[in-house]
């Protein structure tokens, strides 16, 4: 199968600032790619590029026809305003089908079915009529994943998904994502700070600092120079806190 996304020496920038420099990578169907790096290292910018919200300033970023047709499920960082938003779980989930419908004003049967299936897949059908703001962090996360699944059958992009989850919810979340990756053949691209867990979850790792410091198999990352340094700083910082 063709790769979903190919970057060849891609640069991204805002005004006079380079956010991503000379990045080359390939995302193949079935990949579980994790993007790590310090704040401001260009991770979110790269994701915007994948989603087609930013154009590269140099190089070439190719998104396969297949991926473009099937759509990408995106899970953005949660905002403070969302935490107490008055919306039912169903309303949130079905808004994921929005990319399929350009200018029709109302949802059709197909979309309602998709939303129901997606909720079933994540085991939140029982929460359908509940209010989003009354759910726990882990449940809210599941709702947002269900919404993202409405938008795609092939690729999820998650931006710092575990922020604000408690430890048991984090483990739940990782096993859910692994299941989606292995059982449902979902391609996963995740931005995260949680390096320790990531190494055991993902199969590919991209460590960014504007440029790619490391790009390769997750198993090799722990042994690499970039990986050792990063894990040391992240965990060191964690201990002093």
């Amino acid at each position: 199968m063709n790769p979903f996304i190919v970057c060849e020496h891609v640069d991204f920038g805002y005004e006079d600032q380079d956010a991503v420099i000379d990045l080359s990578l390939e995302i193949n169907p079935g990949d579980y790619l994790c993007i790590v790096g310090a704040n401001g290292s260009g991770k979110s910018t790269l994701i915007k590029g994948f989603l087609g919200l930013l154009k590269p300033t140099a190089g070439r970023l190719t998104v396969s026809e297949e991926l473009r047709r099937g759509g990408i499920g995106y899970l953005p960082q949660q905002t403070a305003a969302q935490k107490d938003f008055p919306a039912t779980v169903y309303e949130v989930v079905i808004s994921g089908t929005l990319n399929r419908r350009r200018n029709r004003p109302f949802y059709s049967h197909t979309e309602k079915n998709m939303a129901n299936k997606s909720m079933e897949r994540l085991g939140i059908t029982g929460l359908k009529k509940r209010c989003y703001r009354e759910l726990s962090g882990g449940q809210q996360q599941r709702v947002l994943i269900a919404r993202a699944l409405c938008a795609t059958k092939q690729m999820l992009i998650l931006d710092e998904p575990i922020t604000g989850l408690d430890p048991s919810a984090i483990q739940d979340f990782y096993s859910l994502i692994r299941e989606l990756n292995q059982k449902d053949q979902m391609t996963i691209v995740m931005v995260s700070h949680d390096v320790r867990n990531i190494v055991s979850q993902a199969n590919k790792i991209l460590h960014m600092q504007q440029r790619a410091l490391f790009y390769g198999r997750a198993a090799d990352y722990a042994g690499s120079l970039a990986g050792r340094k990063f894990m040391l700083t992240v965990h060191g910082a964690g201990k002093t806190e």
Partner: protein
Amino acid sequence: MVNMVGEMLSYPFLVRALIGGMMVSLCAALLGVSLVLKRYSMIGDGLSHVSFGALSVAVATGWSPLAVSVPVVALAAFFLLRITENSKVKGDAAIAMISACALAFGIVVTSLTTGMSTDVSSYMFGSILAMSRGDVILSCALSALVLCLFVFCYNKIFAVTFDESFAKASGVSVKFYNILIAVLTAVTIVLGMRMMGAMLISSLIIFPSLTAMRVWKSFRGVAICSGVLSVLCFFLGMVLSYGLSIPAGASIVLVNMAAFLLFSAVSRGLVFVNR
């Protein structure tokens, strides 16, 4: 009460005020749902002060008040939105600054030219005499537009309000909807502020949705409830203002306040019953 309403309807200027005001409150409430949830409530307040500044200039120069203030306030809406989106500037502080400046500018212009006439004071605190025939027609057109927007673009408005990043990734033009909502808010404020007063108009935007959010748990419920509630509160406020001979703007705000307290009590009660 029925007699009093019948008596009110015999005055043409009161009928105009009722129709125009109900249309404006409906628009304000619907737009308010999106603004409040996106943490843009301050924009409504800022716009009303800018609108005051623009109106004072219009009065001083003798131009038509609507022709001057609608474009100015729409521009200000656009600008305030940019400020709020740009995280480099502290949005709320900038809005507070701009609204104070606009107010001060309006007062200076007025006192240098006409002096603080009744016109200007009625802009500050509202007057039910303000609704002209043209205003009523314009507010009906505006509310038709806002209603259409909420019926036909409801799903997109939900997506943009709940999660801009996701909406953007789904191919919804977030910028377009933000600007549309800001400009419609600007027009709503200009139309409503001469009746409600610059100091009080932002309550029409903020109160109904906050009140609806006490009890309703779905976006649809909140939107519908706040629209209905706003029209109802406006009407009751007008009747109260007529019966007690108090300024309409203030009495409408107090009725809204009472509704908010009532709904809060109901939501407390619901929690208690569910336990």
